[in-house]
């Protein structure tokens, strides 16, 4: 029973990673860049919910929608100002810019809201679920997190495969030049990708903080990096891959915390990354990169 409880909590944590990883993987697949500032969007979303809901007493749904809007606009703005001028530049330049944006957001948050930890109140106000006569208790946050990310993943997969903007995203991902020649506005598609990814990050932030209620300006950094590991683990560029990678990583992390060592759990997560890169560099569901000779 104890094991089951750890497992469920791992799946819940993994669902948050999955939501963040979806943003990573979509931006990588379409803009061909690693947006290391993605994790910090979570933090911004967290502060929006904190000030409007936890402190301001706003309706949680309204507060959530506001956070999504703010993060979406932030994501589009970052792409427009920091990344678009570098379209066509070396990938290393873009990568370093992304790290710079990440520091900018973290330090900006510190300046605006101080580094003093804020205590977050859960946006989920439902009772916990008791199973097996009370021997297994699953918190409402856990359930909401898992269900939300599952729904989002299915909607996203449907969107990418069945709508005109979704098809355009796939086309840009595969061959930007050819897509342009089909009349697709590549910049608009990349903006859309950042918008979706950042909106998801806002949701991930609120859910993460509902389960782990300490909010500081660096709150998003570690989950962001872990979500990146999850995206690589599942096969970066693949939407189901990000989801599977996220869930597995959450489980691995929580079970190592429970059975191996709390201090070592992060090390184990990154060990997973190293092993994946050694054994299957393209990730669990990633496309195998074939080099033509």
């Amino acid at each position, binding site marked *: 029973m104890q094991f089951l409880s750890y497992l469920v909590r791992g799946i819940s944590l993994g669902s948050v990673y999955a939501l963040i990883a979806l943003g990573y993987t979509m931006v990588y697949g379409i803009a061909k860049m690693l947006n290391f500032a993605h994790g910090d969007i979570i933090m911004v979303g967290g502060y929006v919910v904190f000030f409007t809901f936890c402190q301001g007493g706003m309706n949680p749904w309204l507060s959530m929608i506001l956070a999504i809007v703010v993060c979406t606009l932030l994501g589009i703005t970052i792409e427009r100002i920091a990344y678009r001028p570098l379209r066509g530049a070396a990938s290393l330049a873009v990568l370093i810019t992304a790290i710079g944006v990440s520091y900018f957001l973290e330090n900006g948050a510190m300046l605006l809201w101080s580094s003093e930890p804020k205590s977050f109140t859960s946006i989920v106000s439902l009772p916990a679920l008791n199973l097996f006569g009370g021997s297994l208790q699953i918190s409402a946050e856990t359930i909401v997190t898992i269900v939300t990310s599952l729904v989002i993943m299915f909607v996203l997969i449907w969107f990418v495969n069945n*709508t*005109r903007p979704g*098809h355009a995203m*796939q086309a840009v991902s595969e*061959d930007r030049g*050819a897509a*342009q*020649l089909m*009349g697709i506005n*590549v910049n608009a598609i990349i903006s859309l990708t950042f918008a979706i990814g950042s909106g998801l990050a806002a949701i991930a932030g609120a859910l993460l903080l509902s389960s782990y209620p300490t909010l500081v300006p660096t709150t998003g950094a570690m989950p962001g990096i872990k979500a990146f590991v999850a995206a690589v683990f599942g096969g970066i560029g693949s939407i189901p891959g990000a989801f599977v990678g996220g869930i597995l990583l959450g489980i691995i992390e929580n079970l190592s915390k429970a059975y191996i060592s709390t201090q070592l759990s992060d090390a184990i997560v990154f060990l997973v990354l190293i092993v994946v890169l050694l054994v299957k560099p393209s990730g669990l569901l990633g496309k195998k990169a074939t080099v033509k000779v």
Partner: protein
Amino acid sequence: MALLEVKNLGISFGGLQAVQGLNMSIESGHLYGLIGPNGAGKTTAFNMLTGMYTPTEGIITFDGVNITGKGPEYISKAGIARTFQNIRLFNAMSVLDNVKVGMHNRVTYSMLDGVLRTKKYRNKEAEMNEKAQRLLDVFGIGDKADYAASQLPYGQQRKLEICRALASDPKLLLLDEPAAGMNPNETQELMETVRKVRDDFGIAILLIEHDMKFVMGICEEITVLEYGKTIAHGDPQTVSNDPEVIAAYLGGDDED
């Protein structure tokens, strides 16, 4: 005025003048050939016409509008579509979806329509599917609609590329070495396809090709490039008897 009017077009990369002084005038419904030895600047010319490169000199007028220096999206919307020398399909997508991407700017609905699956979304998608299917049927690959593009044999991938280009309802279709890598039978079949496209869709076609039999058999007017310069121009008869053209081809060291 002709559909496409190219005046004194040129581009240089650093010190290299890849194309210079190119003049072409293509009427609606015409089959026009652009030929020349490897490295003559044919694909470069295509890249300027489709907005991939910005010309350093000259003017391109399409359908009465100056499109010089405009981006690929604009030019695609204006009505020029192309295929590629090395096939560039969206391999991971289905054959049908490839054609639908080609319709990107012809059939539109808002993102909200898509997410909410409104009536408009369903109608437009149905319309696109039907139109894409009809195009595939014309090229005899309608039964492969659900295959991944990469699963098609080479000849059919070429046909799919033409389908995808036609999906944008172009007024001018650019074909970059459509017969490359094809055997004589496939080439013969392709010639009929190209003629059929011109006749059925009533559009102008500009093609680059190395296969002389193909070009001479199908084009009504030909421009010959060598080292970026036009060395001959006229109908197939005139061009094939031109001494400079014969020298360029026979004197070339890497032509078959």
